[in-house]
């Protein structure tokens, strides 16, 4: 009710996007939107205004109203999120241009910015029917994936895992006797694998799920923020394919998001940091309705870090 009232006020689009700072490659930011919380038609119209003609065409070609709304929100989320970080220049969400890399991964086309020096942001988006998320980093590729915690699989979990996951992962899953728990671990593993492939940016075809293993291993953190050594779990990826990027370069965060979803974020480690010391990603999470309301939810029940 309150959100609908707020939505009816027409804000100037650039003025109502509070600027955010993101300076370190060790940091990752996650912004998410809950589609069912956006009901105002005037707000949806505002979002449509910031899309490119091409994006508008794709969105409005969709015949299903709910799918159309989700596609619209996804584009609006990406554009508004990236615009927030352009602190030193006045950038409107509408002015951003996007291109696809050689493998089809969408990226911001920074070349089109002549008047200003943009912050070299990387982004990645993931959507489910009830949550759309956009992750951003600076100077590091990023891949994210979100899945509903209670999603059902058409196939038997172990049949699916045997077909698509690595031997080690199959072993780990088959050791779980409770079917509900097994399904949950499967979903977590899926989000991690998806996030990794999306961070690589080369497409599923180039990094088939069977060719790498993701494991959660316990490790000791070095002194971080003044604390001495304590147990933590680290998510690591091993690849069977030599031609792939050095797998020790990638780090992961896995979380329970908004109580309803698992979310995985994969970023590249800062190459200037040597040694086996684990330097975790500093993650900040916002729940947003662009132009209306932003809420930092890190440290609340909405974000429960599972690992990483």
């Amino acid at each position, binding site marked *: 009710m309150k959100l609908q009232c707020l939505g009816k006020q027409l804000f100037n689009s650039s003025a109502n996007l509070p600027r955010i700072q993101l300076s370190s490659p060790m940091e990752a930011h996650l912004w998410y939107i809950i589609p069912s919380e956006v009901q105002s038609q005037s707000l949806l119209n505002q979002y449509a205004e910031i899309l490119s003609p091409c994006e508008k065409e*794709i969105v409005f070609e969709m*015949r299903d109203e709910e799918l159309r709304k989700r596609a619209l929100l996804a584009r609006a989320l990406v554009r508004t999120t990236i615009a927030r970080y352009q602190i030193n220049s006045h950038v409107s969400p509408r002015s951003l241009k996007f291109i696809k890399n050689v493998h089809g991964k969408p990226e911001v086309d920074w070349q089109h910015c002549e008047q200003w020096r943009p912050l070299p942001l990387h982004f990645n988006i993931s959507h489910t029917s009830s949550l759309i998320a956009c992750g951003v980093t600076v100077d590091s590729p990023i891949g994210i994936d979100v899945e509903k915690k209670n999603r*059902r699989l*058409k*196939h038997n979990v172990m049949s699916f895992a045997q077909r698509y996951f690595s031997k080690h992962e199959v072993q780990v899953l088959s050791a779980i006797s409770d079917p509900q728990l097994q399904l949950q671990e499967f979903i977590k593993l899926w989000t991690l694998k998806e996030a990794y492939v999306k961070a690589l940016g080369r497409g599923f*075809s*180039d990094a088939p799920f069977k060719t790498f293993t993701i494991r959660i291993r316990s490790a000791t953190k070095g002194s971080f923020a003044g604390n001495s050594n304590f147990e933590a779990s680290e998510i690591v990826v091993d690849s069977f394919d030599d031609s792939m990027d050095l797998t020790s370069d990638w780090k992961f965060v896995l979380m329970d998001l908004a109580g309803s979803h698992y979310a995985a974020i994969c970023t590249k480690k800062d190459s200037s940091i040597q040694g086996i010391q684990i330097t975790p990603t500093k993650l900040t999470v916002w729940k947003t309705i662009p132009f209306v309301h932003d809420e930092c939810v890190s440290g609340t029940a909405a974000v429960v870090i599972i690992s990483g």
Partner: protein
Amino acid sequence: MAARNALLKYLRVNVHPVQPFLQNPRTVIGGSISNFLRHRCFSEEVRGSFLDKSEVTDRVVTVVKNFQKVDPSKVSPSAHFHNDLGLDSLDTVEIVMALEEEFGFEIPDNEADKISSINLAVDFIASHPQAK
């Protein structure tokens, strides 16, 4: 009677014994016929290995309609898994797995993510002789 004879004369085809092609290269007609027969048999064998496209379409549409998340009324031969049916990457992999079960052959992982619509699934399956 005369007309009948004339017609028969007109219709009569000279038949030569079918000779092995190499032994008698001058019997062009015989050679051609045997080649033609050989060729026709071969293409029938080849044609028999590929499934008929409209049959493949029907079967693919059925598999997709049976997918619980899918609204059957939205499934048409041109439906795009993500844009029209609202399916995500995990759903798409499940559909690929269901198609493997339906058609009895493995779809390589490096081809799987190109199958993003019913049309693409049909094209892929119809062009693979291993599909049953």
